[in-house]
């Protein structure tokens, strides 16, 4: 904008223009300074955690918390090793329930959105309203019945006991299965909304053309809608994976104990490094990073898709 006006202005006004241009440049500098300052604000807690996680107790006492250990002798990766030993089973468990429920959520959500958006019938707005309201229901409002349902009524561990003799299957997989079902059920509303936001923009005439071409409701989904929703599937996978991985309340109540063989990564992290002498911060920081690693990785690789999921 400023450049354009400089080229069109008269030479006599150059002095006045110069001041304006300088002002804008100064403004740009201020803008970038602010933006970089904000980067500092958002990254400082994370950066501080990272440098702390590799400090020895001496290093911890002798450096500012946000500075890296300045002496090579103050660096140790022992805490990472310890944290990893604690968290590794939890990471496996978290993967075991996060991936299946993410996939189930995406499939069921896409189907629900299709049935509620592209096939027109009366009353679908009411059903849809129930789906959307489901996004906002606080988990506290269902957590006691949920706990009752799994622990008193279903008792999957006992019911499926015939399975645990099979190779590769272990009794704590019952809890994992409970978590898969639970996360799927509570993930469906938001995923349905995400898919619906895309399906609403799909050309109605195209769906009608496919139906006139002889395709049944199912075939329209299979051959037209599904191939066209692949980008949205990517968004949903990334968003939902992060959400389920990060979740804590269900882990806490359904799994119950940090020592349970089915304990998730977030659950183990919540109890990591607690002792009577106080909190072992380097260990906690290392644990936090290990727990966050899958989500961090996904986020760094697919930040745009994540943002797209957040926007809807």
């Amino acid at each position, binding site marked *: 904008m400023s450049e354009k006006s400089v080229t069109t202005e008269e030479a006599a006004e150059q002095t006045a223009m110069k001041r304006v241009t300088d002002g804008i440049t100064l403004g740009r500098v201020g803008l970038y300074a602010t933006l970089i300052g904000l980067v500092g604000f958002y990254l400082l807690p994370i950066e501080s955690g990272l440098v702390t996680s590799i400090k020895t107790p001496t290093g911890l006492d002798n450096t500012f918390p946000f500075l890296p250990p300045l002496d090579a002798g103050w660096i140790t990766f022992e805490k990472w090793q310890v944290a990893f030993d604690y968290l590794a089973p939890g990471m496996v468990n978290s993967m075991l329930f996060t991936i299946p429920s993410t996939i189930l959520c995406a499939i069921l959500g896409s189907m629900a959105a299709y049935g509620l958006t592209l096939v027109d019938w009366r009353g679908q707005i009411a059903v849809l309203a129930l789906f959307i309201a489901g996004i906002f229901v606080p988990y506290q409002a269902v957590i006691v019945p949920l706990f009752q349902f799994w622990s008193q009524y279903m008792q999957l561990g006992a019911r499926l006991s015939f399975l645990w003799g099979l190779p590769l299957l272990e009794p704590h997989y019952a809890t994992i299965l409970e978590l898969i079902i639970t996360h799927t059920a509570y993930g469906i509303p938001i995923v349905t909304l995400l898919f619906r936001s895309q399906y609403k923009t799909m050309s109605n*005439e*195209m769906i*009608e053309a496919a139906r006139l071409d*002889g395709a049944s409701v199912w075939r329209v989904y299979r051959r037209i809608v599904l*191939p066209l929703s692949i980008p949205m599937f990517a968004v949903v996978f990334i968003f939902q994976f992060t959400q389920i991985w990060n979740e804590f309340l269900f882990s806490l109540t359904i799994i119950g104990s940090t020592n349970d063989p089915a304990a998730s990564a977030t659950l183990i992290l919540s109890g990591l490094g607690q002792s009577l002498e106080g909190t072992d911060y380097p260990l906690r920081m290392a644990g936090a990073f290990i727990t966050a690693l899958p989500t961090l990785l996904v986020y760094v690789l697919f930040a745009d898709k994540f943002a797209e999921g957040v926007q809807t």
Partner: protein
Amino acid sequence: MAETQLDDVRKVFTETDGNEIVAVNDVSIDIEDGEFLVLVGPSGCGKSTTLRMIAGLETISDGDIRLDDRVINDVPAKDRDIAMVFQSYALYPHMTVRENMAFGLEESTDLSDDEIAARVEETAEMMGIDPLLDRKPEELSGGQQQRVALGRAIVREPAVFLMDEPLSNLDAKLRAQMRTELQQLQEQLETTTVYVTHDQTEAMTMGDRIAILNDGELQQVGTPLECYHEPANVFVADFIGEPAMNFFDVTRRDADGDGAVLVNETLEYTVSADISTAIGDRDDLVLGVRPEDISIERSEGDQRRADGHTVPASVTVVEPTGDENIVYLDLGADRSERIIATIDGMSQVEAGDRVVVHVPEDAVHVFDGETNEALHNRRVESNEPRVPNV
């Protein structure tokens, strides 16, 4: 190929607040086998709804739609053996042209892959789109997409083609070209076609017959020339023809002999016995005359010819279009009526000219002012039909 009948077809939409809107009101049309029928009318007249009911995309509130005497009201769209071309073309964006064309055959027939491939190739060749077969819709121009959409309908060899304003997204030149092409194609395929448009030029030039709809009601079904020369009512007379027919609200006054005079504040128009008989004793009337039937004569002062078919006027605007001039005139001393005439492009008329307008009696239409129904239409020399001016 099939005969299609609409029998008192009605469509009522219920809005969320409980209001009922009649979109299509008891429409009956018999579409003959191989006929090209154009449904035309202003937007919101129910033409698209009618088409979508034939397609099976809207339920029918009342009445029957028959395909070869078989009621298809409850047959789902996918089983109706109907192909439709949409305004937006509605191509499947993730499929190539080849896949787009094959889709319908895969879904609705038991043909083998080889047979499908052969039919797609054959149709693509006929449509001149065979070089595009492996492209995706986004790589095609609007005109090419339009062709693919047509090809996709044709390859299925359906009983009926339905087209919903298929040319309206094309630019003017391409539209004119496609109009001709589509007509030739339909003649060649001899497939019953129902074509919806709001553009009367398309209606007049393409249809074997046209059906004119307004406010959900069928106004008239007939050949383009019938609708042009013998409009059933004021709406049809007004809708068909460009520039539109001139109308004057008049009352009847008895004249010498069997004739009558149609009068209003600026106009006194003498009609002979047969028109007078057609009018009967109705008093509230509308006199109509097409712009191209009006002739303009230079005048000196305010003179009228003795036959009572002339009226003095002054020219307000002249719009030359090349082969003809569209002349806007104010009638009468107080210039309260406006009339449009189209005259030969070579004649010299300028704004401000005082002229005499001559309206020949065999070119006038008379309508009932209350019901808007036609009472008398212009005389048509059957051996030499006039080319309608659209």
